[in-house]
């Protein structure tokens, strides 16, 4: 049986073709994110407005917004913000370096793996918050204890990703480098590192978030400063609007760090599947 030919089908005229699915996939988060946020803010406002006792536990969104507006003009708060940002970045940088170096050594040497593993596991299972007083005792009331906590949290996801990445390098790649009489450094520089880079970037995306958490957790117990200390002070002074504003600022810092790494993925590994824009939830912020 022959199929009837439909000349007026809208999809057969290229000029009028509108690929709804593609548009939907691509721009969906830009539409839904503000809508969901607005809905949440509305529910928040409605809850606070309808329930008089709720005001003591939850400030209305408008007051939080006022605190946020004041934020950039307050040099004390900006100094605390900068301190948290600084601790996060330094913790992330040191943690990344430690994670990559240890991960590489573990992937390459079974002996090193067996020597280092118990200590690495111990460093992860120990409740790091319990270490903060110890570090404050050792290093004083300054940024160092907070950075150490950030490092301890940040290095592990990098380490495990680097181990996976380096161990996944196919035998044929090693054959190629052997056939070119490459030395160990060249093998790392031209094959192992680029091969592991997508794994490293994935580890970094997790690590930067953990580094921020580490820095803030350190600051909770360390009255030296930073947004963690600001949050504790706000709580002690019952300034809930300020506490909420602090959380929003921390969220913005986290988002910024994460966004930089997602952008780095597109820039550093354009050849990799994970860097393609379409059909990848990870790259559409």
């Amino acid at each position, binding site marked *: 049986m022959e199929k009837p030919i439909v000349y007026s089908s809208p999809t057969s005229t290229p000029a009028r073709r509108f690929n709804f699915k593609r548009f939907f996939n691509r721009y969906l988060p830009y539409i839904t994110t503000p809508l969901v946020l607005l809905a949440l803010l509305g529910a928040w406002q409605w809850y606070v407005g309808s329930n008089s006792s709720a005001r003591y536990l939850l400030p209305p969104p408008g007051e939080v917004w006022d605190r946020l507006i004041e934020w950039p003009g307050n040099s004390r708060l900006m100094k605390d913000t900068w301190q948290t940002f600084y601790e996060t970045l330094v913790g992330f940088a040191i943690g990344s370096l430690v994670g990559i170096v240890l991960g590489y050594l573990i992937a390459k040497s079974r002996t090193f793996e067996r020597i280092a593993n118990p200590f690495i596991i111990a460093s992860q299972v120990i409740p790091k918050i319990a270490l903060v007083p110890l570090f404050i005792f050792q290093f004083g009331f300054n940024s160092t204890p907070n950075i150490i906590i950030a490092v301890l949290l940040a290095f592990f996801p990098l380490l495990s990703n680097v181990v996976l990445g380096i161990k996944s390098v196919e035998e*044929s*790649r090693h*054959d*190629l480098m*052997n*056939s*070119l*009489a*490459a030395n160990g450094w*060249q093998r790392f520089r*031209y*094959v192992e590192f*680029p*091969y592991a*880079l997508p794994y490293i970037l994935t580890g970094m995306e997790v690590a930067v978030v953990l580094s921020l958490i580490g820095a803030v957790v350190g600051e909770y117990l360390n009255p030296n400063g930073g947004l963690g200390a600001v949050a504790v002070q706000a709580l002690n002074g019952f300034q809930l609007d300020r506490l909420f504003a602090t959380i929003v600022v921390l969220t913005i810092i986290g988002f910024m760090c994460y966004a930089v790494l997602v952008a780095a993925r597109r820039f550093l*590994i354009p*050849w*990799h599947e994970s860097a393609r824009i379409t059909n990848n939830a990870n790259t559409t912020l």
Partner: protein
Amino acid sequence: MEQLQKTGSTTSQTQEIVVSGVNKIYQGESGAVTALEDINFQAGHGSFISLLGPSGCGKTTLLRILGGLLRPTSGTVEVGGRALYSDKGANKEIIRCIGFAFQDPNLLPWRTVLGNITLPLQLQGVPKAEREARGRRMLELVGLEASTFAKSYPRQLSGGMRMRVAIARSLVYDPLILLLDEPFGALDAMTRENMNLELQSIWQKSGKTVVLVTHSLPEAVFLSDRVVVLSPRPGRIKEIVPIDLPRPRTKEMLEDTKFNQLVGLLRRKMED
């Protein structure tokens, strides 16, 4: 550059490959498997040798041994009178005189076509401008326009093009010995014939010693001076068949009686 010339001059006589008493035994979980048994042959200075045999006969294993990638269980491989393997492993200086093209193109997906071709030169410390110029020349030599393909990534190329890039990479540092592991296996018949012609002309111009692994009878006859026929399980040399057809060989010769007699001879050698 100076270092390159130095290795070049010390290796001017290293084009002859002598394989004596090579055995390769793999220790598997289910016991030992003999992949190669008592392999003896030589590939003379500037000659073209094919290793022919059914799958599983150890052709690739033998080629990897020749390329310094796999140490034989016993026996020796000498290149230009020097042992390829010593107690310290394969001699890197000899490996630098050997170009190896793998069965699959084995290109690095994060490097452009030009970046892949020039990788060997980068490892040797050749300056960027020079290695890119040489890389572009190689790209043209294997029949790809440098202006179109140099900046492409491997995934944007067809299978045949990727194989050409891999061959260009094995030729770019002008190795004195070229080892090819079924490089044209994935190509269609017409492209394969053209690549065979190109390979012949590259070989004739450069005077390299070439060892080619293939399971195509016409390809072995078309290209080789001598064909080493291997039998499977364990891999043994059944016979070394000289191919005394005149050079350069042309497409017309594919229909010659002499050519087809040689193909028939190889077939019988492989079958019995």
